[in-house]
């Protein structure tokens, strides 16, 4: 096989892996959008916030240390202990659930039956608030997130595939980051368990019911507020998973919240209401931008990854506004 062909395969594989990350963030968007019709601008920040919290808890940081120190003139930053990764994840989850409850109590409850644009604005506010809150609690410096996930290239895969290239082609085997493989596995497990949960449990059915018809859901005794808390908690959980994966890959920093913007084209491709759409959309964007960068990029000076996704989304908006899997707009007579 020619080296070029093999490189293309490698690019596609790496694109798929990157796509998984986009999918994870997009998934959080879809969950909330389906259940409450809110486009949650803060989803990306939630991922950042979750990652920061995780790192903070793990390393035994004192929350609001700067604030406390400034107010009381103390110089404490650390409790002086570290928390095991699994424990830290569980605690972070608790924080995200608390956060969901607070969002419902403080924001959503007061905005019932408001225009979507108002709800959207509220989530923008929420995003900035959380960003500031995160910095205030844990500090704004770049952090490394390490919960013991494997990382670095997969030697096994390289060795297994090195023979594919022609003699002397300089092909060293396919390179894939182990972390990406883990991320894929986690994303897959997440999607499967979310699907099972929504199909075969009472709460899952209630989630779908609320997504379908509020009035009917109320009439069978489902509390919308409770469901919103659950949805935001699940979205928080998904954000945490995304935050962990991205954080482990490229460090916990502000730019992490920008992946939320990449999720937008993913949603336009996949449709705002479709979970499979979010997954496939993420993969298409991931592969698309990597392939584009690899093949066309060099001709036009590179850095196409910054804008490719948005252009693709634009094309989709023109030809298939409901996305690949979104609810089809059918007019019945």
């Amino acid at each position, binding site marked *: 096989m020619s080296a070029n062909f093999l490189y293309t395969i490698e690019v596609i594989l790496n694109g798929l892996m990157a796509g998984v990350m986009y999918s994870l963030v997009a998934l959080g968007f879809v969950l909330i959008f389906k259940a409450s019709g809110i486009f949650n601008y803060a989803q990306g920040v939630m991922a950042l916030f979750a990652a920061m919290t995780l790192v903070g808890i793990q390393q035994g940081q004192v929350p609001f240390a700067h604030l406390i120190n400034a107010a009381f003139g103390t110089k404490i930053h650390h409790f002086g202990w570290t928390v095991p990764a699994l424990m830290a994840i569980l605690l972070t989850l608790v924080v995200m659930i608390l956060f969901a409850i607070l969002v419902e109590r403080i924001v959503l409850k007061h905005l019932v039956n408001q225009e979507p644009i108002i709800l959207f604005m509220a989530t923008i506010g929420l995003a900035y608030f959380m960003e500031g809150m995160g910095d205030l609690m844990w500090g704004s410096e770049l952090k490394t997130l390490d919960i013991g996930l494997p990382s670095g290239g997969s030697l096994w895969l390289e060795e297994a595939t090195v023979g594919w290239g022609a003699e002397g082609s300089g092909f060293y085997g396919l390179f894939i980051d182990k972390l990406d493989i883990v991320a894929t596995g986690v994303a897959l497990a997440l999607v499967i368990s979310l699907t099972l949960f929504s199909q075969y449990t009472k709460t899952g059915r209630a989630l779908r019911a609320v997504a379908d018809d509020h009035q009917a859901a109320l*009439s069978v005794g*489902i509390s919308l507020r409770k469901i919103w808390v659950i949805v935001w908690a699940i979205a928080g959980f998904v954000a945490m998973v995304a935050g962990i994966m991205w954080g482990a890959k490229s460090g916990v920093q502000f730019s992490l919240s920008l992946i939320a913007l990449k999720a937008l084209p993913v949603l336009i491709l996949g449709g705002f209401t479709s979970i499979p759409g979010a997954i496939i959309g993420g993969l298409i964007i991931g592969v698309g931008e990597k392939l584009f960068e690899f093949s066309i990029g060099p001709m036009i000076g590179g850095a196409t990854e910054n804008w490719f996704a948005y252009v693709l989304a634009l094309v989709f908006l023109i030809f298939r506004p409901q996305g690949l899997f979104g609810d089809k707009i059918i007019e019945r007579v």
Partner: protein
Amino acid sequence: MTTTQSNSAQVSKSVISGRASAAIQPGEELLRVENVSLAFGGVKALTDISFDIKKGEVRAIIGPNGAGKSSMLNVINGFYHPQEGEVWFCGKKRRSLKPHQIAHQGIARTFQNIALFKGMSTLDNIMTGRFTHMRTNLLMQAIWRGAAEREEIENRQVAEEIIDFLEIQAIRKTPVGRLPYGLQKRVELGRALAAQPDLLLLDEPMAGMNIEEKEDMSRFILDVNDEFGTTIALIEHDMGVVMDISDRVVVLDYGKKIGDGTPTEVRSNQAVVDAYLGVAHD
């Protein structure tokens, strides 16, 4: 195997009838509306209305369009809180309720313009109707412990009995949005039944149906009442069918009660006849 087969109808009878009203004997008062008046910003919807619903009966509330039937229904189920008057249900005076709590008190309802979960299957819709009877919490469901699974199976059995009862086996897995109108109405009845209500409220169950569908629906309403002893209150503006299936009828006109009694009594009530013929009110 043979034992599970026989007497299934008896099993469902105990399963599907309500529980909150267990202490009340058939024929005794289940719900009482006392001097209720309701107004929306000065516009009077209901004026000084009183009547009762007895356990085990089919009670119809009829009246021409705009008579206040829907307001009455919403007062009965606790969605509206009347400015004056009281509602007594199962021997207790009704306090103010949040919308989702209505279902938990043992009142299930259907809607005039069908409020089903259109994207979900018939079975899922009916299972969702079991919501108030499912006790396991999120954590148990999330990690799929035995209790949640058992509960799922038990409730599926009830759902299947309802599916069998309403003869909708063929559409068990069909998304209800794809069903014709008459069947959607039937599924909605099934979802309401799944809640095992003490009181079943039907909001114009036959609106928009053709004669055959109306007859089907009448049969199911009577069967539900017969088989499970469910108390049914229904509102309709079309007198015809309702008179055949109701035990007692309340007639409203312009928010006032103008008649109350058996179908025969109501039919011979001059005020009712006038209201339906559109005689001018002086």
